[in-house]
Every structure is written in C-alpha cells, then in structure tokens.
C-alpha cells in the first residue's frame, strides 16, 4: 500500500474530520448528481485546488481516479436499455442517442467521488486513517483488524510475488491444468503460513504486554482549521444539492 509521507498543513488536520469532510463531499456529489459542465468543473477544480494546497501529487490523484472508469462505463451502458421498446438495432441505437447525458453522468459522478477519496488517501497516512476511523466509532474489532492488516499486507504481497516469480521461472512451460494445481498449492501454502504467522505475531505481542488495545500515535486535537474544513465541505455539499433543486 502506498503511504502518504508529506507533512503539509493538510496532513496535520484531524483525520476524523478529514474522513468526515470527504464523506460529506461524496454524499453531496452523489445526491446532487452533477450534470452541468459548470458543476463538474467546480467539483474537479476544488479537489485539484485542495490537492495543490496540500502539496499532494495532482498526477497521482488524477491517475488514481481513473480506476473507476472501466466499471462506471460498463454499468452506464446498461442504462439506455431500459428505454428500448422493441429489441432491434434501430431502437437500441435510438435509446443510446437519446440518453447519452444520463450515461455520461453515471460515469462522471463516480469519477468525481473517487477524486475526493484519492485526495483523502494522499493527504492522510494509514496510521492517521485508522485513528480517524476509531474516533468515528468504527467497531473496535474492525479497527484492530485493519491495524494488523495494514502491518502485514505488504509482507503477504511480497511473499506472494516471490512465490509467483519462483513458479514462473521454474515452471514456465507447464500445461494449464498443472499451472492451476500449482497456483492452488501456492495459495494453500500462503494460507498455512498466514495461520502460523498469526499465532507467532500474537505470541510476540503478548510478550510485549499487548492487552487487546493497540497504542496510537499522539492524537491530533481538533482545532479551528478542522472546524473550518468540516464547515466548508458541508457548505459546498449543501450548495451542490441546492443547485440541483
């Protein structure tokens, strides 16, 4: 997982407020369903401006937001089919031509939402994110699990990639059936390693005095700038919805 390491003012904001502000913005975008060029440009402009102020990589935010496009485009293709009377090429084409705007909206809305989430991800470290989620009263079991997961996901990924490399280099010309069997064995052995690792990690943590609660880094206090961020996000989301009404 990528880690945000920059230390701009945006990184020092209280993470729970940032998560909340991003969520409010996403809800605002979804509920307003932006369909005019002005609204879309204002949202995208705001996100990129905030990214610039936060010294986050605009390129990474834009590239990261593109991840949603394939699924959004695929789902949007189903939309005009609701309006097809008879299943003939002419009526299908007519339905697509008549409803290209809602289709476009179905692609733009998730894209803008992902841009907001990318901005959050690139201005918040993982530890801050977990702290924020805990402050937002996410079940403790889930926060604890996410903390461990964050610690071990890279280890698992590296092990899997190493095993995959070994498999490809040592058995490049195997039949599909044997390859499937090998991948099954690979995943199975990874699972057993994960099981054993889980026990070892817990034993190690107990020896260090773990009592079921994870220590967190110094908790950032909610300051005026945090309140301003929350208020700004709420006002912007409310304005978007009002413009729609």
């Amino acid at each position: 997982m990528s880690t945000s390491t920059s230390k701009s003012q945006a990184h020092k904001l209280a993470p729970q407020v940032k998560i909340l502000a991003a969520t409010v913005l996403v809800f605002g975008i979804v509920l307003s369903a932006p369909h005019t060029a002005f609204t879309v440009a204002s949202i995208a402009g705001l996100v990129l401006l905030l990214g610039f102020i936060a010294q986050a990589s605009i390129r990474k935010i834009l590239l990261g937001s593109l991840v949603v496009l394939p699924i959004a485009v695929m789902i949007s293709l189903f939309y005009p089919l609701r309006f097809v009377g008879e299943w003939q090429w002419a009526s299908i084409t007519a339905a697509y031509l008549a409803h290209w705007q809602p289709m476009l909206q179905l692609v733009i809305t998730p894209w803008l939402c992902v841009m907001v989430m990318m901005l959050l991800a690139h201005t918040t470290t993982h530890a801050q994110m977990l702290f924020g989620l805990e402050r937002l009263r996410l079940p403790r079991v889930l926060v604890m699990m996410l903390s461990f997961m964050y610690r071990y996901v890279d280890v698992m990924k590296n092990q899997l990639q190493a095993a995959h490399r070994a498999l490809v280099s040592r058995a490049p010309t195997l039949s599909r059936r044997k390859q499937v069997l090998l991948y099954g064995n690979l995943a199975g052995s990874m699972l057993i390693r994960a099981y054993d690792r889980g026990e070892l990690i817990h034993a190690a943590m107990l020896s260090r005095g773990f009592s079921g609660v994870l220590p967190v880094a110094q908790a950032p206090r909610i300051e005026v700038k945090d309140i301003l961020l929350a208020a700004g996000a709420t006002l912007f989301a409310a304005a978007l919805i009002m413009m729609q009404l």
Partner: protein
Amino acid sequence: MHIPDGMLDTKTFGTLWAGAFAGIGYAGYWVRKNFDNSKIVLMAVMAALIFALQMLNFPIAGGTSGHFTGGALLGIMLGAWPGAIVMTGVLLIQALFFGDGGITTLAANIVNLSFIGCFTGALVYQVFVRISKSFVSKIAGASLGAFLAVVFSAAAVAIQLWASNTAEFTAAFTAMVFWHSIIGVGEAVITGGIIAYLLKVRPQILEDEPKERKGSMKSVVVVFAVAAVLAASLSFLASENPDGLEYTYHDMEIGTVEIAEEGLFPAPMPGYTIKGVGNETLAIVGAGIIGTLITGLFVWALALALSRRNKGQGTKETNAEDAS
C-alpha cells in the same frame, strides 16, 4: 463487482446501509463474544492474505480477466460472521485508499461481498459436510459454495442497479450472472484447490470449527428470517407479465389455454397472493414470506434427511470394520 458511487439511488443505498449497519454490528458482537485476541490477529492476517490473493488474476474470454474474491473461503475457514468482518475490512481499505468501490455504496458492497459471499460459501460447505465428511464432499461443498457466492453476489448487484433505475433488469442480470458464472468457475477452482491442499497438509485448520458451526440452527434461523424479509420486500416487484415459458406457451398456442391459466392442480397461492386475504399488499407480502419459508424448510429437511442417512451408513460401516 464493487459498485462505485453514483450508481445507486438514495432509497437503495439507504436501505442497504441500514442492513449493513445491523449486520456488521452483530458480526462485531459475535466476534467479541466468541473469539479471543489471538483469533482477531488471525483474522487480520487472513484479511491481508485475501487482499494479496485478490491480485491473482485469471484469464477469462475475450482478453478480460477475473480475480479471486475470497468471500467463500473466509466463510468456510473462519465462519460466516468473522468472515464478513474480514471482508468488510478489505472493502473499507479498498474504498478509502484505492477508490475501489464507493462510499455511499460501501454498504451495498458489504452486503454483496461480505454477507452474501461469506454466508453462501459457509452455508453450502456446511450442508455438504453434514451430508458427508469425506474429502470429496468437502471439496465439492467448498467449490460449489464459492461458485454460488460469486453468482449470488453478482445477481444482487444487478438487482440493486435495477432497483435504483440505473440499469435495465434483464440485460444487467443476464450479463452479470453470465459473466460471473465464468468468474465463479475460477473462484471455485481456487477455493476448492486451497481447501484440498489444507485437508491434505493441515486438516486440523478446517477441523477447528468455529462455535457457530456447532450450533448452526441459530444461523439457519437468521438466514431464513433475512430471506423472508427480503422476499417480503421484493414481492412487490413480482411482474404481472407472463414469464418466458408462459409467454412462449401463449405465443406458440401450445395445448389448452385454460390448463395454462388454471394449472392441473389448484395452486395454494395463485399469482403470488394468498386466497381469502382481502388486503392485496398483505396477500403479496404474506405469499412472499410463506413461499420462502416453505422452500427453505424443504431444502433444510432434504439436507437433514440425507445427512441422517449418511450417518446411518457411516455407523454401519464402522460396525462392520469393528467386527472385522
């Protein structure tokens, strides 16, 4: 299969949020009650592994690929409730850090992948294990459970998109179910392969059954209740138009129309309503609930009968071995 933001309308994602809140709340309670910290560490490591395994893409047709989801595997290995928590953690990380799956639609993704995925995998596997504890039965249960988990989740996505007026039902349902049936085969092969490997190399991992499996009657009742509520909600959506077979029957003018309309035997709940109930809404909702419960009880009774028969055979075999 992750639904992005903007694809579901307010009523749909609102309803799903209510369901997901209740489900995750209960799952958290279940895990705290039944699992100690060591098991939670194990859940986390499993979450990390599932996250990594989701990178394993396998080729499908036309240059596209699918990837392992792992819901059924989690349900089988950890139990349905802990599995749902682990999958929810994975979905949360994907939504917050990678924009994979939306925020407003997070609940939909939790319902589809965490609950439908883990519960389908776990329940199908349990039914097969109750029928027979043989190696083949366990592999078959794990594979079928994984396949159905993917297909049911895909069907749920199509239903949610249709309920939100985002997609035409037939096209979305057919495309989602068809495509995910192919992906489901890959999921079934990987899940079956992993379970086979575990049964050969470290069978005690699967024998260390979570408490939920021992007293699974409660989970069956919960599933029945959820299915009945869903049936009650969805019964309003039952189309008054003829289905494909009825339409073909009328269109081709096959046989006697009266028989097609009336049926050979009088149906207890014709047209998905209950005879004698004046209130139409009540009649439709009641028919939905009763139909679901009857179907569920029938399947449950069948599985139980097969399981007892199998146990009987197992006892006879054991006695024969003892005698020899």
